């Protein structure tokens, strides 16, 4: 973007030097690293999310007959419901973390785009939710005696989690100033997540019954990729309006 002649010279100099150094990706990394560092110091969202996921998986274990082969067909649904609820606990903190000292104002005032802030926060959330899922998965395997092919399950986790994260992060920004944001976030997020969750559930159930996610049954994989791309594009287009109005 061209600097107009009216902007004072003294302030333009660092900006010009900055432009060479600070690429979009670098600023996204700065925001992501800040969020991860803050969360790893307190662990308030990750601990709550992980505890919730493990407790629910243990409780579900007593609700179903694990010797019944039909149970394998519903494990996808079980697993992704747990991931969706546990993920919301992480996502709720994403923008709420900026509230205590009005840090969101300082971020909005900084010369970075809304898309940069959004992607930085979304990536931090993604890594945190993915970490919770990767810890929960062996717990699930032990209790339910269901083991997935790791590579294919990782693809499903990566795609499904991005869908949860990208929608959750944008709604976390939207609800950050609402008094009942802990209630509003899931109410707004889950209906939007239905296609991504459906895809993830079906693919996970396929893996549990020994059907690979690609080949003839790749339709849901394509649906999941399509929704992830759509969600991401819509979030990037809307986030500036969400943050500033």
């Amino acid at each position, binding site marked *: 973007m061209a600097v107009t002649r009216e902007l004072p010279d003294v*302030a333009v100099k660092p900006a010009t030097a900055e432009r060479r150094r600070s690429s979009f990706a670098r600023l996204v990394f700065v925001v992501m690293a800040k969020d991860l560092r803050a969360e790893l110091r307190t662990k308030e969202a990750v601990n709550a999310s992980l505890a919730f996921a493990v407790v629910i998986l243990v409780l579900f274990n007593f609700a179903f007959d694990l010797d019944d082969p039909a149970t394998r067909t519903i494990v996808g649904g079980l697993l992704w419901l747990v991931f969706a609820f546990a993920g919301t606990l992480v996502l709720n903190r994403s923008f709420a973390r900026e509230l205590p000292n009005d840090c969101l104002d300082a971020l909005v005032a900084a010369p970075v785009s809304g898309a940069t802030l959004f992607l930085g926060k979304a990536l931090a959330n993604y890594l945190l939710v993915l970490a919770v899922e990767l810890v929960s998965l062996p717990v699930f395997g032990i209790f339910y005696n269901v083991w997935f092919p790791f590579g294919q399950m990782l693809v499903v986790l990566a795609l499904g989690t991005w869908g949860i994260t990208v929608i959750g992060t944008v709604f976390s920004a939207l609800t950050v100033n609402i008094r009942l944001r802990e209630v509003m976030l899931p109410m707004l997020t889950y209906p939007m997540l239905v296609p991504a969750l459906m895809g993830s559930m079906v693919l996970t159930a396929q893996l549990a019954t020994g059907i690979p996610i690609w080949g003839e049954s790749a339709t849901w994989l394509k649906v999941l990729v399509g929704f992830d791309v759509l969600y991401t594009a819509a979030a990037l287009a809307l986030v500036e309006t969400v943050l500033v109005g």
Partner: protein
Amino acid sequence: MTAVSVDGVWKFYGDYPALRDVRLDADAGTCLALIGRNGAGKTTLLRTIAGFSKPGKGAIRIFGQEPRETETRRHIGVIGHGIAVYDELSAHENLTLYARLYGLPDPRRAALEWLEQTGLERVRDGLVREFSRGMRQRLAVARAFLHDPSVLLLDEPFTALDDRAIAVLQRLLREALANGKTVIMSTHQLREALELSSHVALLNRGAVAFHGACTAEMLADPGWVYARYGEG
């Protein structure tokens, strides 16, 4: 040169007009004190100038540019009601973060320099949540000045500051004004503000009741402008 121009700005919260046809200018190198009773619209005006929210009607220009332009934001420094630093990060990490966001050439060094300027170098690695209130406020001042902004927007900057933080802020503001920076501050501390200000704007229920140069009457009696133009 006009640094900040507010031209016929209206801002609505629902149907309520928080700002009503506000027209103000601030030239480079001047300090404008925004005064007015609680709820007069000072904070709303500062937040709108800073680009935190868009005006319902009218236009705001910072050196002729929209406040939300990325380049324009490099020239604005803001101290709001909150200190805008992260409790979970150290003082040095906080300033380094903002130095990176503003694209300063050597973020870590810039952060260290401002920790020294504000007397926080000894606690550079301490987490902000462990800081006293005065230390937190000095860190907020360092954050706002870190990127050498041309326009400083300060919302009640002297409120609840300890003596040391007031001294630091006044020194930095005097240096900034001497270097041609523009300062717009909302305040209830008229005496401290008028000592620094070249101009005064009185807001009354969202409208500008008075806008002009700071006069001898105001310096002699900070309440004079309220009595003469406002809800005295």
